[in-house]
């Protein structure tokens, strides 16, 4: 049977925690491949992945989430940090981070007009309607993973969902400054 995305998220992860890894690397081609290979080799699925330029010139930041045990995530983090062009890798639990994700939904406008519960549900979730036309309506929801997946499940229940996509997680640590900034102060890549 085909798995639903919400089911996948709600899968049994007994003894596992959803960890977020923050990885900083040099902007060199092929580093992403090396980072993801660490997960592949240990048979750990990446739940979400976001890569973008960081606030430090020439340094890219990866935000990766995965379900894992603490023992396993320690090994994964060390193996990532061992890669020559990876500057720093750390893992966090949700309570140690400010987290943000977005879900983008395309739902059927006729169904939206037909069932007032759908718009109540959007308001309840603090969703924003980005575009409305006679055929479809685009809804944006910013929040945590389970909020986004919950709205997804609701739209599925209403039978109005046409398309869905979810962003990777982005996250900031709760410390006042980024430790990598200090670490790289006055350095240049050799």
């Amino acid at each position, binding site marked *: 049977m085909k798995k639903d995305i919400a089911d996948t998220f709600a899968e049994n992860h007994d003894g596992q925690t959803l960890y977020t890894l923050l990885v900083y*690397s040099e902007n060199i081609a092929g580093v992403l491949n090396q980072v993801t290979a660490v997960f592949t080799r240990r048979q750990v699925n990446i739940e979400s992945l976001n890569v973008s330029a960081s606030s430090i010139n020439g340094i890219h930041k990866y935000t990766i989430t995965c379900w894992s045990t603490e023992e396993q995530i320690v090994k994964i983090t060390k193996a990532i940090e061992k890669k*020559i062009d990876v500057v720093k890798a750390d893992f966090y639990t949700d309570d140690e981070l400010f987290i943000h994700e977005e879900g983008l939904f395309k739902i059927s406008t006729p169904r939206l007009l037909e069932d007032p519960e759908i718009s109540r549900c959007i308001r309840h979730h603090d969703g924003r309607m980005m575009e409305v036309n006679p055929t479809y309506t685009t809804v944006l929801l910013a929040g945590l993973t389970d909020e986004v997946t919950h709205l997804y499940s609701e739209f599925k229940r209403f039978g109005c969902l046409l398309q869905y996509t979810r962003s990777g997680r982005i996250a900031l640590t709760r410390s006042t400054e980024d430790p990598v900034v200090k670490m790289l102060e006055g350095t240049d890549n050799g």
Partner: protein
Amino acid sequence: MSDNTKIKIGKGSGTQSPIEVPWSGIRIGEECTGAEIMMRALYQEDVKTIFGYPGGAIMPVFDALYTYTQKKEPWFDFVLVRHEQAAAHSAEGYSRVSGNVGVAIVTSGPGATNTLTGVADAMMDSTPIVVVAGQVGVKALGTDAFQEVDLVGLAQPISKWSYQIRRPEDVAWAVSRAFYIARSGRPGPVVLDFTRSAQTGKCKWEPSKVDSVRSYQPYPKLNIKAVKDAAQIINNAKKPLALVGQGVELGGAQKELREFLEKGDIPAGRTLLGLSALPSDHPLDVGMLGMHGNYAPNVKEQECDVLIAIGMRFSDRVTGRLDTYAKQAKVIHLDIDPTEIDKNVKTDVAVLADCKESLPALTNLIRKADHKEWIDSFKPLWQKETDQVIEPSIHPTEGPLLMGEVVNAVAEATNGEAVLVNDVGENQMFSARYFKYKRSRSIVTSGGAGTMGFGLPAAIGATFGAPDRTICMFSGDGGFQMSIQELGTIMERQAPVKMIILNNNYLGNVRQWQDLMFNHRRSFTRMLNPRYEDIARGYNIPYDVATERKDLAAKIDKMLKTDGPFLLEVAVKEDENIQPMTPPGKSVDEMMLHLDI
């Protein structure tokens, strides 16, 4: 700018050292090709010997190489191997005996992929090599051009660093960075994918010297508290046992190891790769660890109260069944690589540093101890193994020749001074067990990867890396044929490899496992061999064969006294088993002296 000018150059101000340009007739700032810069960069890294094989996409480099090998005082000695895989293994052998970075140059596509087994092997065994492979020009990348392969993508998971050079301006930097990464910290292989357009393109030559990389910390700072904690545990130990690995050899810490062991009166077992880190006849040596190691250290791992792992990685071949391994002991792990800590065996105290630094720090803090009673307790186990396994193996009086007695005879004839290079299989275990090691860097073996076909090319490399030493290469008939073409390299270069084929007409180790675990179903392990005498004659290599016990010593003597290479074939017992053995999935103290098969 004049020659011999000390200058500050490079990409990053904080990352590179001033460079002396030591050779005359070449000027900094002059325009030259990327291939020419490659030669200068290799020379600057003090490369003396290069192993390789030419081909289309690396021709500009070989053209430049021609210039520098034809000079009156050549910069490089280029060794033309007969297969690119051998280039990588030869570079490994060269590196393992010399401590220098081994270098291989090959062409793109199949030439490059042929080196990958050697790259993976070097990664597993922490061997510093740099492989330079040709690549199609930048404009042809990604077009499935002739002999194009995504080498960086292929090499990344099995190398310490892989990089594609796309511009001549990057050659000097990339080479210097490659050597720095290969040799620093925990050493390993680096692959440079050298596009043809970067080889032929021109730029002004400016040398580069990378001596740090900001994202890479090769030498962890020694944590004094960890050292103190470790010392406290050792000072309270009644039954300490040290496990010595190749990290000691890589760190050049053999003297520091002896001082540590002697002050603490700590018995030491050696891993396969760490066999020559401590002389075989050292009073505190208690033998070889692992599946086919010695009985006493394996059993005693389950009895010691403190286990001190020094530059070793708790490979599955050493630990056996992990969930029962040394559970009674406190574990102290000295290593340079943070990823090794708690990877397989949970550590009580980790001392992260080069053991050249951590061992003296620890020695300073431990008390002079006396563990005579504990050390003496190894002796009955040793005696048991000697009586039941070792003596019957090395001094048999009847029946066909045995592998152990051949190795022992060579070890005695070379008085522990030779370098042992071996292939993979029974020949590897017998030779590792019964060879004698007096000097450091005396064993070259494929430990982690277990690469059949490693022995012959690695031995060729070793003759160039340690030209003053005798190189004895033991191989089985199977592994020998995996690299048999390298007899051509030996012939051409007269590389003085003393080759000993332990011929049992079987892939012996697999045959043993089939007998043990697959009810004697010998599935494709019997092997019909060629006439090695004819092959040796074809390559003009001196040859002899030993089939009788009474002739063995004389034939070994003839081999060792013959200048240059020699191929000695020894007809050994067909179904001899390598013993003792800890069967897969069993605890190390369940090691069997005799296999009931």
